[in-house]
C-alpha cells in the first residue's frame, strides 16, 4: 500500500534528478573525460540561453565531448559568472562569457565579486547581439539625422525604452547621448519583451533594442529601424546604416557572447576550446541556426581579442555609471 502510494513523488523526484543532471555517455580520452558544464548566467528563455541550446550540440561535437548547460541566473549575470570564476580551473566548469556581466553589471554592484581583468580566462568570442534605434512607422523621423536634429532642438523630450537598468542598451543610450550631444531619456523596462509593446502602444518615442523582437514588426510595417549598433550591417536590413557609419563611433557597441573560464585554466584546454569554437562558428549548420534566431551576428574572435574588447568597453563605461546612479 505504502509502496504504491509513493509512486507520484518518486516519479517527481526522478524528474528532478533528470533535470539536475543532463548527462549523456562519455568517451574514454584525455580531456574532456566527463561532461563539461557551461554555466549560462541568465534564466532559461533569454536570448543567451536559446543561443547556447541552439549550438551546444555542434560545439560538443567539435570539442569531442559532452556539454551540460546549466542556468545560474541572478544579479544581471553576476551570480553565475562569479560561480565559474571561483570554481576549480580544471576545464570542467566553463562560462558563457557575456560581455555585460563582465563590463557593465560589476559597475552597478558594490564590491563586485570578480575583476574581469584579473579573474577571468577569455577563451573566445562567438557572436554579438546588435542593437537598433527603432521608432514607430508613423513617427516623423525618417533617418537618424532627423532624430538627432529633433533631439537637439528638444532636449529630454524623446523617451527611449531600454531593456532594463544596467544593460547594454541602457549604456548604449547613454553613450549615444554623449556621442551625438543630445539628451534622450532612457526609460528602463523589464526586458525587450516589454519594450516593443511600449513602443507600439505609443508610450515611448523610440527604443534601443536587440533586433530579434523588432524584426517581425519591421516586416509588418509597424516600426522603422533608423540605425544599428553593430560591427557590421545586418544581413536582413542591408539598407540600414550602423551608427559608426554616421560618425558616432564610440557608442557603436554590441553585447558580446563568448566562452570563458576561471583564471589559471591550463593553456592546452583553452586552446582546445578556442579551436573548437572557431570550427563550430564556421559550420554551415550553426550559421543557419544563428541566422534563424535573427538577433545575432556571428563574430568570432580569439580569447585575447575578446578580452581586449571587453576591457576597453569596461574603461568606457566606468566613468558613466556613477553619473546614472547619482554617486558622482
Amino acid at each position, binding site marked *: 500500500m*505504502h509502496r504504491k*502510494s*509513493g509512486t*507520484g*513523488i518518486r*516519479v*517527481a523526484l526522478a*524528474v*528532478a534528478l533528470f*533535470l539536475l543532471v*543532463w548527462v549523456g555517455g562519455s568517451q574514454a580520452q584525455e580531456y574532456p573525460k566527463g561532461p563539461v558544464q557551461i554555466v549560462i548566467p541568465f*534564466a*532559461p*528563455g533569454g536570448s543567451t540561453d*536559446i543561443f547556447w*541550446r*541552439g549550438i551546444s*550540440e555542434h560545439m560538443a561535437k567539435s570539442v569531442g565531448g559532452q556539454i551540460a548547460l546549466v*542556468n*545560474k*541566473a*541572478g*544579479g*544581471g549575470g*553576476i551570480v553565475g559568472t*562569479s560561480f565559474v570564476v571561483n570554481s576549480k580551473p580544471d576545464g570542467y566548469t566553463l562560462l558563457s562569457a557575456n560581455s555585460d556581466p563582465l563590463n557593465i553589471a560589476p559597475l*552597478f*554592484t*558594490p*564590491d563586485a*565579486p570578480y575583476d574581469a581583468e584579473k579573474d577571468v580566462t577569455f577563451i573566445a568570442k562567438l557572436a554579438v547581439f546588435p542593437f537598433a534605434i527603432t521608432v514607430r512607422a508613423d513617427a516623423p523621423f525618417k533617418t537618424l539625422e532627423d532624430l538627432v536634429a529633433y533631439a537637439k532642438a528638444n532636449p529630454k523630450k524623446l*523617451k527611449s525604452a531600454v531593456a*532594463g*537598468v*544596467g544593460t547594454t542598451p541602457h549604456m548604449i543610450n547613454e553613450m549615444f547621448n554623449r556621442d551625438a550631444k543630445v539628451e534622450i531619456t532612457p*526609460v*528602463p523596462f*523589464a526586458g525587450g*519583451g*516589454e519594450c516593443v*509593446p*511600449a513602443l*507600439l*502602444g*505609443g*508610450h*515611448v518615442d523610440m527604443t534601443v533594442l536587440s533586433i530579434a*523582437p523588432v*524584426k*517581425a*514588426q519591421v*516586416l*509588418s510595417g509597424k516600426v522603422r529601424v533608423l540605425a544599428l549598433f553593430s560591427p557590421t550591417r545586418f544581413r536582413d536590413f542591408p539598407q540600414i546604416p550602423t551608427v559608426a557609419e554616421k560618425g558616432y563611433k564610440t557608442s557603436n557597441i554590441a553585447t558580446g557572447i563568448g566562452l570563458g573560464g576561471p583564471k589559471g585554466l591550463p593553456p592546452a584546454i583553452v586552446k582546445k576550446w578556442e579551436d573548437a569554437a572557431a570550427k563550430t562558428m564556421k559550420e554551415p549548420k550553426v550559421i543557419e*541556426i544563428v541566422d*534563424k*534566431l*535573427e538577433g545575432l551576428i556571428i563574430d568570432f574572435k580569439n580569447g585575447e581579442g575578446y578580452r581586449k574588447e571587453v576591457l576597453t568597453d569596461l574603461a568606457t563605461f566606468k566613468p558613466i555609471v556613477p553619473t*546614472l*546612479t*547619482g554617486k558622482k
Partner: protein
Amino acid sequence: MEILNQLLFGFSVALQPMNLIYCFFGVLVGTLIGVLPGVGPAAALSLLLPVTFHVPPVSTIILLAGITYGAMYGGSTTSILVNIPGEAASVVTCLDGYQMARNGRAGPALGIAAFASFIAGTITVFILVFLAPTLANAALKFGPPEYFALMVLGLSIMVYLARGSIINALIIVCFGLILGTIGLDPMVGVPRFVYRINTLMDGVGLVQVVIGLFGVSEVLINVERTFKQEIFKTKVKGLLPNRQDWRQSIGPIGRGSMLGFFLGIIPGMSVVIPTFVSYVIEKKLSKHPEKFGSGAIEGVAGPEAANNAASTGTLVPMLSLGIPTGASTALLLGALMIHGIRPGPLLIQDAPEIFWGVVASLYVGNIMLLVLNLPLIGLWVKILKIPYHFLFSLILLLCIVGSYITNNNPYDVIIMVTFGLVGYLMKKFDYEAAPLVLALVLGPMMETALRRSLVISDGGFAIFFTRPISASFLIVALLVLLSPLVLKKKRLREDLRAAE
C-alpha cells in the same frame, strides 16, 4: 464560417497520431514539472529546446505548449495535497484547496481544479480564435500609467483577501511591499537593502518566498501538533466533485476564465495576479464568504480557471504580434524561429497550418490533460496516507530541491528556509501569508510603473488622470476602498431596524 473551416483544418493537423503523441508527452512532462515546486515550465522548455530542432515545427509547438499547460495544472496538485504551490500561480489554490484536503475532500478539489482548467482552456481557445488580433492591439493601450492604476486597484482589493484581522492583513501587505523594494533599483540602478549579497540584487525570489511561507511553515506547524492523521485517512470521500460542488463552481469557473484571459493578454502582467483577483471576486460574490479559507470549492475553481486562461492569454501577443511576454513564450518563439517561422501579424497568412494547428492542439492538449489527470487523482490522494514522519521529510526535501533548482543557487535555499521560519511565526501569531505574496508581486510592478510613468510625463502626476483607462481604474479603486463605509452604515441601520 471560414474560421470554422480553418479550425477544422487545424484539428486535422493536431489529430495526426505523431502530434497526439507529442501532445501527450508535453502534457505529461508539464504535469510533472508543475508538481515539482520551483521548476517552472521555462526550465523544462529550455531543456527540451535542442530536442525540438529534430521535430517538425507544428509538433514542436504542440509539445512545448503542452508543457506550459501541464505545468499550470500540475502546480495545483501540490498546493492542494501538501500546501506547497508548485508555481507562484497556484498560491491561491493553497488557501482553500489544502483546507479541502484536510477535510478529506482532496479528490473533489483536484477534480474541480482539472475541470476548471479544462473548461477555462476550452472557452479561451475560442476567444483566442475569434478575437486574437483585435485583443492584442487593444492590450497595447496599456502603458505604464495604466499598469500603475491597475496595481492600485489590485492593492485596494487585497484587504478582502483577509480572513481574520484586517489590520494584520495590512501589516503583512506593508511587509510584502517593503520586501519588494529589495534589489537593484529598477530605474537608476542603485542597490537597495542588498547587504553585499549578490543573490539579493534581483530582489527576494518569489518562488523561494512562496515555498518557504507555505510548504515549510506548514510542516513546522504540523510537527508541533499531536498527529491527527486519522482525519485524512477516514474521510477521503468521493474522488470527483459531486453535483453540489458543480453548482457552486460553474460560476467561478466562467468568471475566472474571462478574467484570466483578459489579464493574461496584457504584456508584463503575471499569471499570479489574475488568480488573486478571481479569488477575491468569488469571495465577494459568495453567499457564504465566511467559508472561504476553510475549504470553499469556489476558491479553488475560480483561480484554477484563471491561471489556465491567463496562460492562453499570454499566447495572444506572441501569436498575433510576435511579442514574447515571458520566459515560456520567449522559448516558444525561439523554437519556432529556429524552424524558420516567425510568429507575428503575418503568421496566419504565411503559415496557416502552424497557426490553426497550434490553436487546435491547445484544445486537444486540454482534453488530454483531463484524461491524464482524472485517473491520477486516486493516486495523488493516496499520498496523504503516507505516515507523517515520511511525508514531512519528503515535503521538506521537495522544498529544498525546488528552491535550489530555480536558479541552481544555494543562497536561494537559505532565503527559502528563512521564509519558512517567517511563515511559521506568522501562522503562530495569526498573520496570513497570501497578502504577502500578492504584495510582493504587485509592489515592484507598481513601483516601476509609477516611476516609468513619471519619467514619461517629465514628473507630472496628471498623466494618471488624463488617460481614460488609467483614470477609470483609479476611480474603481476609490469606490472599492470607500464602499465598506457606506455598506457598513446601511447594514448597521438594517440591524437596528430588525432589533426594533
